[in-house]
């Protein structure tokens, strides 16, 4: 079974942070509070879209063929992701 990385608190729906990281080789445990990287905050489908988009050299036409969707549908998915990225960036740059 593939585990999904949760990024939203099931109790209050806030963003989750990472409290500990473990070395898969020597089991060293690092403890603290780390924010999740931007990409990890996206859903698995959104992450797959971003990876496919990069693999397609950023071509919406290639993406449309790959996903069997029309060009504007793929562009709309990308635009929705851009809005999500911009919204995610806002709290980390309050001075801007």
């Amino acid at each position, binding site marked *: 079974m593939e585990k999904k990385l949760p990024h939203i608190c099931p109790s209050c729906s806030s963003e989750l942070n990472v409290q500990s990281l473990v070395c898969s080789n020597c089991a060293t445990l690092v403890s603290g509070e780390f924010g999740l990287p931007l990409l990890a905050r996206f859903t698995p489908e959104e992450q797959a879209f971003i990876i496919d988009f990069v693999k397609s050299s950023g071509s919406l036409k290639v993406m449309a063929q790959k996903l*069997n*969707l*029309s*060009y*504007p*549908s793929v*562009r*709309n998915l990308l*635009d929705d992701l851009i809005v999500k990225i911009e919204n995610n960036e806002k709290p980390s740059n309050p001075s801007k």
Partner: protein
Amino acid sequence: MKKWLFNPFIYVAGWQALGLGLLLMAITCVIAFFSQTHFDGGIDVHFGAGFPLLVCALEQLNAWLSTVIVFSAAGFILSKSAIRIIDIAGTMALARVPMILAAVIGFVPALHQVDLNHISANFLIWSLIALLFSIWMIALMYNAFTVSCNVKGNKAVVGFIVSIILAEILSKIMIVQVYHHFLPK
């Protein structure tokens, strides 16, 4: 299936939709010529006298172009996306597909025998069926607008209502010119 009936634009847009849409409009035009059905506005369907084939073709072009012009303008005003006119033109052409069925029911004699003092049940039933095809086309046009222009929510609903009214007005202005210049006097 529901998506293909009401929002095929998720899968088909651009040149592909334009080619298919224009082909279906040409078929509609030929059927409408024989069934004496008229598309004299952006969303209009009427049954009446026979017109020359050229006028039937110009009716189709007028109905389609008026929506393309107005929805393109609305898209550039309302959308933040890099929209393409070819997507609006293609999806709006494909959205007219239910008009083939409207042209086919134009062969029903009851739709041409209108006596305003004695409206038959047959006339009412077939008129309602024609209305259903128009509603289907409007639903397709709404989805064509939202997909090709990437507008959502209230902005999409209000933008669509205003645009469809403006497209109807524009189509009526243009069709008057078509009838004036191309109908035999």
